[in-house]
């Protein structure tokens, strides 16, 4: 995802949620901070310092707050180097390519579309043996299967332990959906009742009508059509929603230019031209977030934190007015971050102790209650979690019904290719069919 802009928003979220969420969390859970973790940890690596490159956002802050407990239990010092997303990949690649033991980072935080690349390049450890010998400290059954598929396992081996997820879904204005006057206006224009759409076609048709109800005041959708990551992350939901995919199931050939792929592209282009805010063709998450918080968009196919920002940030005009549901068509995209141990790690065993601690049920629960989107199942069964963050009740469904990117090694390249051609089609340089054909031609080189 476009981390630069995402980080700006997430930083604000940190401030907002720090006040709203972390404050509560501190009151409720920080009193337990002296409680020993249930996971047995070794002091064998006392005096070691772990260097970890982390994205500068809420989930990192949540872990950082708890680090003194880990340091007290193990004697291992943990040093987070917090950076914005765009520089992470470049820095990690430089360190990972250094060879065994020669890297800078002891532990990795890995975005879901580096998962295949790092594993197949042989840069990260297969954690299977460590998991088997962990006496249940790391138990993969604690995680949703789709999360393991997206951010943990490659070619049948477990290279990563999920950290948190960032699911996408249909975020909409619940208050408007229930507002009788708005419903009447919609019905007068559309000739049918306003209801949550069940297909992508219905959704696009609906937001096009809503766009006409209050011109310049309320847009049908806040969209992010900027070339690269923003447009592709959004488009994935349209593609998966109509039943399409980038490749066939066996990854033998691209299918993005088949009937479903072209249909998804046409719907996406139709939506961005006729149902979105001006400038949507170059907008990113920062723009859509601002628009959503101003209450000027009826909907957005976006990340969950668009909704949580709307609930938490002080200046938001849509507090208590938003809701999230699964992508029309039933399948959307979910991203995730995971922990991995690089082969270039100078301290791989100490890094494993950290993973055991940070992913222990107790710490995972406390991170979730601080506002993180849990990768483990347990928090979603905790009423405290779902009452404090009501939208989290939907997240389990979002995660369960969603999928990641296809299992090609260079997923970042896939995003770059599709983003370039789709952006061209949105800007009128190509038709949807031409754009998908051109993308398919380049995507075949990634197999």
């Amino acid at each position, binding site marked *: 995802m476009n981390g630069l802009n995402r980080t700006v928003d997430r930083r604000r979220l940190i401030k907002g949620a720090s006040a709203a969420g972390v404050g509560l969390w501190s009151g409720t859970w920080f009193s337990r901070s002296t409680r020993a973790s249930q996971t047995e940890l070794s002091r064998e690596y006392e005096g070691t310092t772990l260097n970890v490159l982390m994205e500068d956002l809420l989930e990192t802050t949540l872990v950082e707050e708890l680090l003194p407990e880990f340091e007290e239990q193990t004697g291992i010092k943990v040093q987070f180097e917090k950076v914005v997303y765009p520089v992470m*990949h470049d820095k990690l690649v430089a360190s990972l390519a250094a060879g065994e033991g020669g890297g800078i980072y002891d532990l990795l935080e890995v975005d879901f579309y580096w998962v295949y*690349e790092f594993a197949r390049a042989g840069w990260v450890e297969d954690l299977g043996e460590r998991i088997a010998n962990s006496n249940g400290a790391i138990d993969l059954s604690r995680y949703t299967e789709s999360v393991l598929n997206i951010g943990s396992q490659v070619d049948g081996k477990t290279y990563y332990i999920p950290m948190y997820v960032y699911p996408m879904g249909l975020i909409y204005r619940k208050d408007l959906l229930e507002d009788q006057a708005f419903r009447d206006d919609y019905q007068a224009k559309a000739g049918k009742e306003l209801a949550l759409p069940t297909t992508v076609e219905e959704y696009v048709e609906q937001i096009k009508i809503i766009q006409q109800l209050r011109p310049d005041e309320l847009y049908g959708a806040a969209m992010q059509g900027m070339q690269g990551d923003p447009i592709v992350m959004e488009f994935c939901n349209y593609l998966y929603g109509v039943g399409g995919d980038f490749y066939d199931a066996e990854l033998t050939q691209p299918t993005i230019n088949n009937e479903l792929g072209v249909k998804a592209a046409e719907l996406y282009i139709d939506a961005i031209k006729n149902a979105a*805010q*001006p400038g949507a063709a170059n907008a990113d998450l920062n723009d859509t977030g601002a628009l959503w918080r101003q209450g000027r968009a009826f909907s957005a196919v976006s990340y969950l934190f668009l909704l949580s920002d709307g609930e938490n940030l002080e200046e938001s005009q849509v507090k208590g007015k938003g809701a999230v549901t699964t992508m029309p068509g039933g399948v959307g995209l979910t991203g995730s971050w995971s922990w991995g141990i690089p082969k270039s790690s100078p301290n791989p065993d100490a890094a494993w102790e950290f993973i055991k601690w940070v992913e222990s049920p107790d710490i995972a629960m406390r991170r979730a209650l601080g506002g993180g989107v849990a990768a483990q199942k347990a928090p979603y069964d905790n009423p405290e979690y779902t009452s404090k963050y009501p939208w989290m009740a939907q997240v389990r469904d979002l995660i369960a019904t969603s999928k990641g990117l296809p299992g090609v090694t260079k997923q970042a390249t896939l995003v770059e290719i599709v983003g370039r051609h789709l952006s061209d089609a949105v*800007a009128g340089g190509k038709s949807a069919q031409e754009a998908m054909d051109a993308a398919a031609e380049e995507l075949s080189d990634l197999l």
Partner: protein
Amino acid sequence: MSQDQLAGQGIPGRVSVESRPRETLQRPVRRGFIPFRIWMVLPTIVGLLAVVGFPLLYALWVSLHEYDLTEGGIGDFVRFENFSDVLGMDVFIQAAKNTVVLTVSVVLLELAIALGLALLLNQPGLRFRNIYLAILLIPLLVSPVAVGLIWRLLLHPDLGAVNWLLKTLGLPGQEWLGNRSTAMPAVIGVDVWHETSLLLVIVLAGLTALPKEPMEAAVVDGANRWQVFWTVTLPLLAPVILVAVLIRMIAAMKTYDLIYILTAGGPGGATETISFRIWKVGFTNLDMGRASAASVLLLLVILALTAILIRVMRVEEN
């Protein structure tokens, strides 16, 4: 009078170089002895070789090999295959065209504006010159990333000041960065806003340093202001302009950060430059062979343009 005669007659108090005994000019050189002056420049030479020479040679070497970072180290020697791949890819050709458009546009516009502003600021007796100069230099002090973020907001179709101004004047707003026809002009405009100050500083320094006598002589001979500028000032300023154009041209051909922030190369690659594409190939695709080949090609183009410009300028001078 020959040199020898001059040396023999000599001016009192001076000793001709030729008349000095040779041994006082040159110390005896022992075999294996490295003069002190060589020792003094050696660290610089070693440093330059390490930080410029080695990376250049390494990039050249990598460009001749298959080198995908995910494949584990440098692969087969592929001769010039990476170069032919790069030159045969539509996306590179598009990026090259964009780079040429961007470079030519920004260099010409910035030079014209900087020259005009420098002439205005160089007017004798101009009051508040330093204040004007300080204001004009502000964009130069802002980092490209900040410039990109500021202008992204200013050019925002819905919330931006530019469209607000247009609408206030009764003109239609534009989707500046999201439209194929306006994205590159918008990027050029932002670059001109940011970088003109650099050329202004260089050209103004050149103007200030010009001798006044030729201009005064031209005025005495009856030349008007335009003739003085065109036939005296501009030719005298030509070497300074050459340096300024070279500096800007090289920097413009490497434009990356502004593109990254403003458009990410979009829409549909309409603003993607060679440097941006090289970064994509190197750090997104992890294909160091092709990225290095493209870098070498970019370097060759810059070197060729630099040589041509210098040659043209020398011909002009002659």
